[in-house]
């Protein structure tokens, strides 16, 4: 059974999750006065109420967008972590558009999301261009840009959009026309989920059924091969960066318009970085990314509920995330069993 590549991947994933949970439990035993209660809260609480499951989906939406944006870059072997800064800055852009008066509740969110996406795409082109043209280390440039975009965004909010009646960093209220409607009653699950589904389908088709997707995959697997075959890495890197930035911008906008009434991020939201984890867990596969985002959102929601009722902070999820990611991206983790199964299978065939 382990000989089958896909089944092996699933088993590997499950084993990694199991290991991570065991480690989490050990940590709870050390640090929590009520380890069992904390642990079961974290694992099962989201199932207890519709509202909690709603929370899982709400959390999943931005994580998925961030994950998709990053996965596309990682697929092309571009280690760019700029989604974080794009999320922040496009949030500011969203605030700028969403606070404007616009007559139609159909057009307003659409325009806001589109502008945010375009700005995200353009921002991503900056490290993208330098990578494509001069092979500038995109990891470093994108990380520096995160800090720069944060400073710039904060400056804009404080100086041009600050709501004076609210303490701390806060924009004016978004117009009601700009908000994304809630689509499932008794939760806060909003129209963003539809946009997410459309995005996933579009990416899935693009990646596996178009020429662009083919070049992305081949370039990611072997850059020399792609160049040799006549594919143009320069344009490809630009296109991939733009699409990634666009998805990031859309994700940021969707999150704000769906979940918030004003822009209030006084620090980087951390969504972009988590996106990198989603991409890794989802194996840079659009559907996989959403599945990973769902799983992590589930855990985060569980941990959130746990944090409210026990003495354990929500950050414990990071342990699970990091451990799972490390094991899942390990080529040799459990490989022995896989190989043994392969040899056994091979032996049977020969016999």
């Amino acid at each position, binding site marked *: 059974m382990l000989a089958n590549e896909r089944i092996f991947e699933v088993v590997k994933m499950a084993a990694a999750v199991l290991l991570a949970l065991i480690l989490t439990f050990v940590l709870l035993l050390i640090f929590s006065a009520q380890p069992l209660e904390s642990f079961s809260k974290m694992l099962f609480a989201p199932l207890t109420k519709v509202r909690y499951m709603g929370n899982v989906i709400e959390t999943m939406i931005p994580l998925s967008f961030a994950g998709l944006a990053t996965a596309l870059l990682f697929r092309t072997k571009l280690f760019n972590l700029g989604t974080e800064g794009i999320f922040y800055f496009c949030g500011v852009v969203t605030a700028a558009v969403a606070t404007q008066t616009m007559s139609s509740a159909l057009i307003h969110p659409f325009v806001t999301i589109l502008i945010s996406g375009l700005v995200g795409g353009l921002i991503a082109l900056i490290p993208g261009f330098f990578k494509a043209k001069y092979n*500038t280390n995109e990891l*470093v*440039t994108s990380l*520096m*840009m995160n*800090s720069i975009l944060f400073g710039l965004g904060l400056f804009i909010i404080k100086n041009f959009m600050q709501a004076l009646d609210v303490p701390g960093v806060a924009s004016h209220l978004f117009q009601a026309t700009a908000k994304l409607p809630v689509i499932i009653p008794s939760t806060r699950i909003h129209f963003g989920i539809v946009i997410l589904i459309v995005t996933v389908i579009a990416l899935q088709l693009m990646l596996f059924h178009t020429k662009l997707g083919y070049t992305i995959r081949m370039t990611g697997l072997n850059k020399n091969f792609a160049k040799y075959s006549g594919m143009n890495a320069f344009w490809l890197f630009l296109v991939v960066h733009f699409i990634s930035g666009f998805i990031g911008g859309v994700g940021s906008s969707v999150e704000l318009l769906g979940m918030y009434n004003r822009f209030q991020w006084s620090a980087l939201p951390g969504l972009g970085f988590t996106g990198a984890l989603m991409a890794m867990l989802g194996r840079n596969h659009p559907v996989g990314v959403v599945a990973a985002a769902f799983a992590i959102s589930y855990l985060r929601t569980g941990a959130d509920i746990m944090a409210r009722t026990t003495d354990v902070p929500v950050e414990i999820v990071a*342990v699970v995330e990091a451990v799972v990611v*490390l094991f899942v991206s390990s080529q*040799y983790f459990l490989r022995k069993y896989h190989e043994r199964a392969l040899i056994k299978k091979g032996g049977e065939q020969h016999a």
Partner: protein
Amino acid sequence: MLDVLNIMLTPEFGFTVIRVVVPILFAALAAYIANSAGIANIAIEGMMLMAAFVGTVTSAFTQNAWIGFLAACLAGMIMAAILSYFTLILKTNNILGGIALNLFSSSFTVFLLFIITGSKGTSATLSARSLPKVTIPILADIPILGRIFSGHNVLAYIMFAAVILVYLMMYQTPLGLRMKAVGKDPHAAESVGVNVKQIKTIALLLSGLLAALGGAYMSMGYLSFFTQNMTAGRGFIGLAAEAMGMGNVWLVTLTAFLFGMFDALSNALQLFALPSEIIQTIPYVAVFVGIVAYSIYEYRRMKIKGE
């Protein structure tokens, strides 16, 4: 403009440059050693953060700065050991593994911080110990030089020593030769019996140690407590400095100082009536511009000039 120049020409500015360059240079040296052995150590940021946390908290519990310091070093090396286990034994892509460790550090330190102090922001409520400042006897009395070079945290002097030690190790010892060999061509190194995994592990552990020194400085020298995500990208600035140093320790050091200067400048400009959000981006802009300029230079160098 002239005011800025005036500030930059004071001994205090020189003092500040050294004060802020310590974590950057340690990070750059950490990156340098790992890179020499062929590993891009993205996890330096996380190693620093973890060391910063463990160092100050341990010093608070033991009421001994040096025990805290040792604990910080250990923390950095444990992180390095984890990374080397995953990248060398389990064959995790080292960039992905590094990213995961960084995210782990930034959350896990907050987790522990909350458990220990009940706050997610800082450890200021703990009465932690800092590492001592050192006044260098004769140097301190020399007019300008004294004010620049004397009176720093002990780790600043360890930093200068580290640069020289790293140089000696890389260029004058068999270990250094083997590290470079492993970094340039692991198969060739292996063919003469050099144990590639062992050499890479040693390089990563040393890298973790150097990163930890930078981290310890953050919470036990630069500040005297831990704050959430206090390394603020210094590990990555170190990586950038290393990348621009073209495999030469002295150039790496120089680049780190250049970045340190911009960091100090950003501190100094806070005095002026300028928007602080923008001023704070100066070090990052400097690194961005620096790394882009460097890559353009490399690109031109590699590209053969026409007739």
